[in-house]
């Protein structure tokens, strides 16, 4: 096991990793930017170090600053959290070159799974169904040819992208002609890589993802799936497990195939395989996320496994210590992403000082948040203020606890989407478990917002 871990992230996940380190009895150093000097993780940590200015490119995204901080504080491992450097294979490689361990998949594994298009082919060859799509698009003519072959509508995606950024839905050849060059330059600007591919667009789909853990010795388990269909512009808002879209048999089959495929492909550490599930219940593999995910707590609530601790153990070279029969998923869990966004003003992200904060409590309620009264929400980073997670023995109970907890949760001083969550929970489509990824964008959030503001 490591002696001391540098936590190279911020917000709630820095706190989450700090807690895992303490539980494991491992030392931890929180690396923070100037804008996060007063952050809860930096305050609670036994040791914290300022790695750069607010601009993430010179702090959380600066490999030399992060590695230098780890070295000067005597750390032997770096936990990148999610986002920032978490899936950067070059960073993982440099970390190793400095005699430190990157907590995540080894650099060569990250590299193998870096390209979404290559990953789809790789895991496709190991038994996962994939959405009909193209290879890398050479030019516009090639794009038109491929779109014709898989059939419109198609979605154009940057190979290096993530989080829904830079994707474009195209319904006709003319639209494709209009869009292609723009999409390419956008991808170049956003990701430094203009490689694009396209795939058939499946309307009314659900987003279901399978959580896996694989140790260095090829032992692997899945920890069930999560349904992340409540999205707005490809950004997840609410996640739940198990997915209301799958039967027990379909779930078991999907999870088994996912874990077999990643082991065969040589994956290591925690990973999440994302699938689109169509209206018939068929699941198509889309991509793998080689990191701890924002929504991991709902899997923890149902399985009782500390996933961050497990991730650290795997990175330290320890065996998984779990077989599939040890992983028992009980009940139902839901996560609400509490964001500093104003649903009545086109979800404009906000910042400012939290004047009052009260986390909800009660049976099956967990709040992962870095907020405290007086905390200044910086405007430099994402708008995630925390994650309210609830568990119940069944879905109806989880929803009822969610409603109770959302009503209790108090965040003053910063505009949040709490009321939007309450409106979604009260909506029949959600209660019936029929939400598809396009719902909020198709009907618009206006009805929800109207319901929320009463």
């Amino acid at each position, binding site marked *: 096991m490591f002696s001391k871990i540098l936590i190279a992230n911020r917000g709630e996940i820095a706190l989450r990793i700090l807690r895992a380190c303490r539980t494991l009895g491992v030392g931890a150093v929180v690396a923070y930017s*100037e804008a996060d*000097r*007063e952050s809860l993780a930096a305050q609670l940590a036994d040791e*914290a*170090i*300022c*790695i*750069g*200015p*607010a*601009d993430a490119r010179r*702090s959380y995204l600066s490999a*030399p*600053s992060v*590695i*230098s*901080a780890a*070295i*000067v*504080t005597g750390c032997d491992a770096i936990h990148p959290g999610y986002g920032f450097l978490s899936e950067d294979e070059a960073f993982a490689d440099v970390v190793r070159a*400095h005699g430190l361990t990157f907590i995540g998949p080894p650099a060569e594994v990250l590299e193998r799974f870096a390209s979404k298009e290559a990953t789809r082919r790789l895991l496709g060859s190991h038994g996962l169904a994939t959405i009909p799509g193209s290879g890398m698009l050479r030019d516009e003519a090639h794009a038109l040819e491929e779109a014709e072959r898989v059939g419109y509508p198609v979605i154009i995606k940057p190979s290096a992208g993530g989080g829904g950024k830079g994707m474009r839905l195209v319904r006709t050849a003319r639209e494709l002609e209009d869009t292609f060059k723009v999409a390419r330059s956008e991808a170049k600007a956003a990701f430094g890589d203009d490689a694009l591919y396209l795939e058939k667009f499946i309307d009314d789909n659900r987003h279901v993802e399978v959580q896996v853990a694989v140790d260095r010795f090829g032992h692997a388990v899945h920890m069930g799936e999560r349904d992340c269909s409540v999205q707005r512009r490809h950004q997840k808002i609410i996640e739940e497990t198990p997915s209301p879209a799958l039967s027990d048999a379909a779930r078991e089959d999907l999870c088994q195939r996912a874990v077999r495929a990643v082991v065969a492909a040589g994956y290591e550490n925690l990973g999440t395989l994302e699938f689109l599930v169509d209206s018939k219940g068929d699941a198509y593999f889309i991509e793998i996320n080689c990191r701890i995910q924002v929504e991991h707590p709902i899997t923890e609530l149902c399985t009782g496994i500390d996933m961050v601790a497990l991730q650290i153990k795997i990175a330290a070279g320890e065996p998984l210590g779990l077989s599939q029969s040890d992983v028992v998923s009980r009940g139902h869990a839901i996560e609400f992403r509490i964001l500093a966004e104003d649903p009545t003003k086109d979800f404009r992200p906000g*910042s400012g*000082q939290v004047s009052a904060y009260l986390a909800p409590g009660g049976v099956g309620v967990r709040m992962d948040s870095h907020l405290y009264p007086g905390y*200044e929400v*910086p*405007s*430099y980073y994402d708008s995630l203020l925390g994650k309210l997670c609830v568990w119940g023995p069944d879905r109806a109970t989880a929803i009822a606890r969610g409603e109770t907890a959302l009503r209790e949760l108090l965040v003053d001083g910063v505009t949040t989407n709490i009321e939007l969550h309450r409106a979604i929970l009260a909506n029949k489509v959600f209660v019936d478990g029929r939400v598809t990824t396009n719902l909020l964008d198709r009907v618009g959030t206006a009805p929800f917002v109207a319901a929320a503001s009463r």
Partner: protein
Amino acid sequence: MPDDPRAATRDISPDDDPARSRRDHQAISQLADDLLPALIAKLASSGLGEIEVREGGWRARLRKPAAADVARRGVARGTGEGHPASGHSAGRAQPTSRSARAGEAAAEQEASPISATSPAVGIYHPRRDLSEGMRVRTGEKIGTVDVLGVNQDVLVPVDGVIGTSLAEAGEAVEYGQDLVRIELTERSPAPATEPVGELEAAVARGNA
């Protein structure tokens, strides 16, 4: 923090259309956060009297009106990369109120000593000949911070003399940490007249 420039510019831009003025305020605060620190640093290390940058429909102009200003800039740099609006001091040992507005921050900083700060997280190596009482000029290199074998310069933020060393040679230092106190000499302009906020950081709406 972004509050300051927003507050400062509220008088400048007409608040007739709320959506537009909101956008304007956002743009200004982003400009202040992203651009101003870099510009101030640039102005400090150059012999220039004025720098103007245009971005989109916006224009930011920094002017060095008088010698008095040099001391002000030194104060700002001493508190972490010349982030005039950030209002927090460098170095963990010296926490200041993070919600301080520009005026308060300026008042606070004038009272607090000036230091050369660490440009990065790494190992600090002061210049060999560095000694207390030595006269130094703005922008002078008085040491380096080794970041994975790459040296980054520790620069003097203001004309003055070397004071107390706050970090040892070979010590691990963090970004923004105070390394060496810089005492103002009699020849340095007395820091009394104008607050930092008046460092002619005129963010004006440009139609030209």
